[in-house]
């Protein structure tokens, strides 16, 4: 008998094994839904799949009676736009401060304690303060995302900059580079793919803050819709919205990774040498 630790599934086994938990969850849901609907045909908790599909069709393909919009798509567009703005702004700030803090010891001494402190403040706790400072418009939602992800991005990137072998910075100087040139040609280009990695990690929290912000102040958006129908326990809308958000999150992550692999072959080439897990 081969030891468990040495047994590797082939493609087919991997597929089957991977699909199992999903099938299990789906099966459990169907069973539970059936049970509850038999007891109470108006039950809202676990709507039948047919009901969910109806609702989604209505949200995606019928213009809303109130505004004439196709709700699913306007919600998605609004949320993605906020997410994109927030994450881009966060990434930019993270990049600038990360590089400055990582490359210039004086700047590190200056900003790093503040960044550490800010990164420890749970943004949810200062939500009320944020809304008061930034109002309730689009700005506030974007700012919540920025505040939520930027301290971590800065700390991440400054660490990545510090991890660039000192040999390279010395080497650049022996080739005649000044501080600015070293940053522009040695540090920045090496940090870019790492920025993308960090951004991918930050997307999880970004979605969280987006939804929290939309729950409090918005008139459209995925989080808004979930929040709105939550009062009526409209699980036929909530569940597919959650699935949809998950799908969007997955696609975003996938796209970012693909982009990174295309633009920075040297970065991924390097990790190709070590076996990379496909978790």
């Amino acid at each position, binding site marked *: 008998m081969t030891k468990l630790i040495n047994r590797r599934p082939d493609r087919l086994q991997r597929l089957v094994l991977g699909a199992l938990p999903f099938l299990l969850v789906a099966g459990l849901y169907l069973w539970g839904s059936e049970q509850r609907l038999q007891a*109470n045909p108006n039950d809202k*908790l676990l709507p039948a799949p047919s009901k969910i599909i109806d609702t989604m069709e209505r949200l995606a393909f019928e213009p*809303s*009676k*109130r505004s004439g919009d196709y709700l699913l798509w306007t919600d998605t567009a609004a949320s993605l736009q906020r997410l994109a703005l927030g994450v881009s702004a966060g990434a930019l700030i993270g990049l600038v401060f990360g590089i400055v803090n990582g490359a210039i010891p004086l700047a590190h001494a200056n900003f790093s304690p503040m960044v550490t402190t800010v990164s420890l403040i749970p943004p949810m706790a200062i939500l*009320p303060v944020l*809304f*008061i400072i930034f*109002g*309730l418009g689009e700005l506030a939602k974007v700012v919540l995302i920025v505040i939520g992800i930027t301290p971590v991005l800065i700390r991440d990137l400054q660490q990545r900059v510090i991890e660039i072998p000192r040999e390279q910075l010395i080497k650049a100087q022996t080739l005649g580079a000044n501080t600015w040139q070293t940053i522009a040609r040695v540090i920045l280009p090496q940090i870019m793919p790492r920025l993308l990695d960090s951004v991918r990690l930050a997307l999880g929290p970004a979605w969280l803050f987006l939804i929290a912000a*939309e*729950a*409090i*102040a*918005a*008139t459209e958006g995925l989080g*808004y819709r979930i*929040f*709105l*129908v*939550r*009062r*009526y*326990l*409209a699980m036929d809308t909530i569940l597919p919205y959650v699935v949809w958000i998950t799908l969007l999150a997955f696609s975003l992550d996938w796209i970012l990774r693909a982009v990174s692999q295309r633009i920075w072959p040297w970065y991924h080439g390097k990790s190709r040498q070590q076996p990379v897990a496909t978790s």
Partner: protein
Amino acid sequence: HADERSKFSVCWSIYVGWMPWDYGAQSGIVKKWADKYGIEIDVVQINDYIESINQYTAGKYDGCTMTNMDALTIPAAGGVDSTALVVGDFSNGNDGVVLKGKNKLADIKGQNVNLVELSVSHYLLARGLESVGLSEKDVTVVNTSDADLVSAYTTDDVTAVVTWNPLLSEIVAMPASTPVFDSSNIPGEIIDLMVVNTETLKANPKFGKALVGAWYEIMAVMGADNAAGKAARTFMGKASGTDLAGYEAQLASTKMFYQPAQAVDFVVSADLKTTMGYVAEFSFEHGLLGEGAADAGFVGIETPAGIIGDSDNVKLRFSPKYMRMAAEGKL
């Protein structure tokens, strides 16, 4: 020290008595009245009710929809002199106490009660307990966000809730739920208002006139028993996440003042003064007036029937002035 301006913004949040503002904004009625007085009024929806009041208190909006109690405890207690420009309705069954598996209010003794702490629900509970000879010490109040009350109620943990519509009707519709006390037992005590900054109003009477004018035109449309009225109510139902039937059910437990004269009568009656006395007492007991408050009269409230509390620190004013103009057709 507020200046004369031509641009204003007011905010509102989703609630049966405030949906007309959305309708007025979407249908152009508000713009029509603003144009008439040569000003601009932005009507902004805010999801989170408390956040909308906070925003108003912080000075980001010139007016905001809120209840009488919150008007006292948030802007007025925060030193922002506020005037109840439009008294739209009072809750007449729209807020209620619901028990699971029990059928009279006295059974609430010893239970956990889920409600939005320090809100009108809390006030309603206090008044209810009083009516059956209990006090707040006999129950445990669990602060629960309004959006989550319905899903929370489906769990076994939750046996007693106090809430408002539309959540209330969702909860009452669930099995084994009995409404045991509601705002129709204390009529006229939970009042839904459009509150505006007093100084802004003083400096810009046009702002008040336009808002009040728009409001009563909306009321005329929505109160009518015709196709246009039905369309308006359907719109409001949809916007609040339900449908015509659901919205009309909520209206049924709301005493809307469709006519300005009704509202004027309500404001000038001595009952309002009594009510606000209760509310101030409740707020003080719960620390809502702030640590600086020595007694329930710390924040003065002006009603046509007289001032309650400190007349040197009047921060909340009920004035029938603009509604009376509407009643007299002078807008």
